[in-house]
């Protein structure tokens, strides 16, 4: 499956911060065929550093970030469903973000880009889905920040979703989650090359961004998975260097992942998207989380992983218990895994079985009505 990223332009988008962004481009990909009554569309939401390229290989042969879940005969079966994935608002992979040119000035927005929220991201996706002529999505699904967007869909557009599948996520960012994001942001802003966000004509704040990414990667793994993957193994040496060069395999891995990230991600997008996650609290403005789900009428499949300490299972259980308290249709499973938060990208077999059965039943129920 060779895939191509497409683009859609919208005249304007009103944001939670009160500002209006104009115009807004959205990068997206689609897989499979939309059926005649447009009832088989699924929106996939990417996590923090993902993009619209979720499945298949692009022109350069790069495989999509959730290719093991999306495709013919897979969990999100493209023989049966029409799958859409778009890059989030304020991203740096084709959708308008701080690195885009501000038409008013002819220069990149930088930190003059308005602050955004998860709800803003979802409102933009709704425009895209409307443009594609889809009135109701069969499902919205994603892991991590993708799961937060799926939850937001259920509450913001209850009539436009038949089901949501939030995986390894939360209904509100915790102090610990905000704290890790803040470390990442501080690493970027402490890099002199960041220059207040105006670095597009000069040197990228690569050192700060790679440190931010290193912290991120630690939180995506688990003590077990790191012990298994690296242990105390040395990198290309038998003795300590006593010189602060790379001694351990794990150091090499983090440096590699950090420097690799700099080539594909914009530091300002890092700031904006992490803030959007930190602002996320589905229960804001409601007496309780359960009350915030009052509007949500779709089916829910919530999944979490035992070793995920960044988005621990208790946060998923909080969502599920709020839904049970409102007597909503919710299924929940905590999957055994040692991969930590990364598990949702790795532990595919069980996820695919459950997602497949859940989607088939959802399609059956909506066609019965």
């Amino acid at each position, binding site marked *: 499956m060779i895939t191509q990223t497409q683009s859609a332009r919208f005249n304007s988008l009103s944001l939670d911060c009160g500002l209006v962004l104009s115009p807004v481009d959205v990068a997206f990909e689609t897989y499979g065929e939309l059926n005649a009554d447009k009832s088989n569309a699924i929106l996939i939401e990417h996590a923090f550093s993902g993009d619209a390229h979720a499945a298949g290989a692009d022109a350069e042969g790069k495989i999509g970030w959730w290719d093991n879940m999306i495709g013919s005969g897979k969990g999100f079966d493209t023989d049966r469903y029409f799958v859409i994935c778009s890059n989030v608002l304020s991203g740096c992979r084709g959708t308008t973000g701080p690195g885009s040119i501000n038409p008013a000035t002819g220069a990149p927005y930088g930190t003059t880009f308005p602050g955004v929220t998860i709800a803003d991201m979802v409102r933009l996706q709704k425009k895209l889905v409307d443009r594609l002529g889809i009135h109701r999505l069969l499902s919205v699904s994603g892991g991590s920040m993708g799961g937060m967007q799926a939850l937001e869909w259920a509450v913001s557009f209850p009539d436009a979703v038949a089901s949501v599948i939030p995986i390894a996520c939360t209904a509100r960012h915790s102090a610990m989650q905000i704290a890790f994001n803040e470390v990442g942001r501080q690493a970027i802003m402490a890099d002199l090359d960041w220059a207040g966000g105006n670095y597009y004509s000069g040197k990228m704040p690569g050192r700060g961004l790679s440190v931010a990414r290193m912290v991120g990667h630690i939180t995506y793994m688990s003590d077990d998975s790191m012990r298994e993957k690296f242990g105390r193994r040395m990198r290309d040496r038998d003795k300590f260097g006593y010189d602060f060069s790379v001694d351990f395999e794990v150091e090499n891995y983090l440096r590699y992942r950090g420097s690799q990230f700099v080539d594909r991600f914009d530091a300002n997008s890092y700031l904006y998207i992490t803030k959007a996650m930190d602002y996320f609290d589905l229960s804001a403005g409601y007496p309780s989380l359960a009350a915030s789900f009052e509007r949500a009428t779709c089916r829910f499949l919530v999944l979490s992983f035992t070793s995920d300490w960044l988005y621990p299972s208790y946060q998923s259980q909080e969502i599920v218990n709020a839904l*049970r308290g409102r007597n909503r249709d919710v299924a929940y499973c905590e999957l055994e895994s040692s991969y930590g938060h990364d598990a949702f990208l790795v532990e595919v077999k069980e996820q695919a079985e*459950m997602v497949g059965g*859940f989607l088939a039943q959802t399609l059956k129920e909506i066609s019965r009505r």
Partner: protein
Amino acid sequence: MSTKRNGPQVRDILGRSDYTIISGIVEPGSKVLDLGCGEAELLAWLVENKQVQARGVEISGSKVRVAIARGVSVYQGDIEQSLPGYPDQAFDYVILSQTLQQTLHPLEVLREMLRVGRGAIVAFPNFGHWKVRWSHLVSGRAPRTELFPYDWYDSPNIHFLTIDDFERLTSAQGWKLEKRIFLSGHKEVSLLPNLNAEVAVYLFRK
């Protein structure tokens, strides 16, 4: 076998005669919660054949995975900890099949079932069955039968009850027994059920 077999033959659903009785009680199109639903075989059958709205609670992750893959909305959790999370009278029926004797606080579970559901369906193995009594009498040890096949130290059953025990409790609580069906193998039992029935199935309400 000298078990009294004087009732009609009960066919199996999914290899279990108590499922046949339970599915006979459940009205089409109703809302059903099955506690300890396993892989949701019964719920899937009820969805297919009785068009019920099905929910389940199951503690085993591997069973929950199968249940969800079947398309049934099952919640992975402990029965006793999960029940308080449901609103009052959310279901037409709350089912507890072959699990009452394994709960830590059976009375609390039954009360919660009647809070959450308009009707409660309970099926349990009868500890008063003659084989259980006989096993205990002749061996002088904790009884072991086909119904209660475990050694005392590895049994999941922690609260043993007979049909008489259950009916004393429901009467003391003022609960109305709407249906009671007693089974021995594939036969319904009407004579001396506390002695002759292996399994009892009740539908009761507040």
